[in-house]
């Protein structure tokens, strides 16, 4: 059962605080998530190189882990900024 009046919270609050609209901020965050994904794979090192240790792990593993932690955080914020309307008047039906 859907609760009356339980449509998605308008994410305008964030826009007021940051001066950037919620949909735009969401897109920026998702772009950063993409960048972190690109950085997580050790393209920046030669294959077969011996790794140093960082944070108790081989350095390229620690970098990947930090990238995924950052991506998780940004992605969670992006979800909170996402508008998922249940109301057909505000539906963005692609068709």
């Amino acid at each position, binding site marked *: *059962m*859907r*609760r009356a009046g*339980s*449509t*998605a*919270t308008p994410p305008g609050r964030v826009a007021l605080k940051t001066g950037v609209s919620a949909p735009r901020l969401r897109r920026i965050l*998702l772009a950063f*998530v993409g960048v972190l*994904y690109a950085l*997580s*794979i*050790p*393209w920046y*090192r*030669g*294959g*077969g*190189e*011996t*790794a140093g*240790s960082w*944070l*108790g*792990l*081989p350095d*390229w*593993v620690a970098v*990947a*882990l930090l*990238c*995924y*932690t950052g*991506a*998780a*955080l940004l*992605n*969670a*914020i*992006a*979800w*909170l900024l*996402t*508008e*998922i*309307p*249940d*109301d*057909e008047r*505000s*539906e*963005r*039906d*692609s*068709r």
Partner: protein
Amino acid sequence: MTEFIRFGLSGLVFYLLGLVALAFVARRARGGDTPADHFLASRGLGGFVLFLTLYATAYSGNSLLGYPGEAYRRGFSWIMATGFMLSIVVVFHALVPRLRPIAVRHRFVTPGDWVRHRFHGESGARVLLFGVSVLMTIALANFLFAQLKAMGELSAEVTGGVISYEMGIVLLAGMILFYETLGGMRAVAWTDAAQGILMMVGLAALAAWLLGESRGLAAMSEQILAARPEIGRVPDTVERTNWLSSIVLMGLASVVYPQAIQRIYAARDGNALKRSLAFMSFMPLATTLVVTLIGLAAIPRFVGLGEVAADRVMPLLLGQWASTGSAYAVAAVLVFLGALAAIMSTADSCLLSLGSSLAEDLFGRPRDAVSTTVFAKRAAGAVMIGMAAIAMVARDITLWGLIELKMELLIQCVPAFLLAIRWRGLRATPSWIGLVLGSAIAIAGTVAGVKRIEGVHVGIIGLACNLAVASLGSLTLGWPGVTARNGGESR
């Protein structure tokens, strides 16, 4: 009989009794026997239950047994699993905000309802729906098979053979059939919620023990590298390409998981859905990373496990942990139940989705009829029995191998969902031709034993061909007529 086995058997009995009780409560809470009530819990799942059911469904026997096994085989590069599990929640951004309102408005029950709605009136729409439904059914049956295999392995390992592999499959599959048939999605979601909590607590306890035993992460890494120094080196180009390919494969294919799509439909409202997905973003760190560490920690402890035996590292670690004292035996049982919970929760979700897809999308039963629910229960039961029988005889297949095969087929449905929801011009006929071509490439690769080419999964290569055919064909055909485009509705 060791303490671990005794506690394990007692814990198992209590756990199963708890599931039976939950199923009866869910049965009493039902609003009827229509497909919408049985398969979507009357579209009333709130944020907390929705989050836990999404979590328990996404993290399965593959995650709990297969991923530690793969971490044991491949070493540190398996950190990629944390990335590809997170990619699922990232790629959902492309689908959920658009699909959810359409699903609510048109009262969708199955993933096929979207295909039916989107391509309504177009020639080729029925073939596309059939193709998507067949691929989803194969993927779900494969997924179910993997869960049954994992259930059998875990029961046999933890009860020291008191419950054999085969008996474990029969007992637990019977239990799932019982509560799923009795309470539908409501029972599945509620048991998932209980199972999700159990899984989180169990994994956290095991990880804490492993780190404590190894005297911290740095010391654990040293022990791992001392046993297999080569896994600390930077991965070569093929491995890095495979890393990227795995992120794309899992991210795209998991988004069209039928059971995940049905949870999008079953959410109470948009707020509940977005909050659940925000929390889900952190679950790869809380779960996949932990099981990766568990697999890595097994490297110095169990030297020389074979390809298939590596899937047993989790039960082997539990046995070792339990042997260190009574309190640890109880904690190990908690982890065992958590792992079992993860497996059962995924299996029950597969079964529910399988039933609805078979009834509505493949056999064309009406969406709102009670008889559809009855048919779906029977069909799902038949598939469950068939898969259980196969799992009993085909024990020597690695869990990761099964995941890859499933994903490579499922990913071929991506254009019919992700592209179709964002591009009005996508047409049904080129979409099904692309789907057939992509699937043929994925199957041919698997049959020929070529899973990857230079690290790229054959399913991704199939998807590239699929997308090329679907988009170029749609551009050639031009936009559909007014009736087809509007789905026959006046807007």
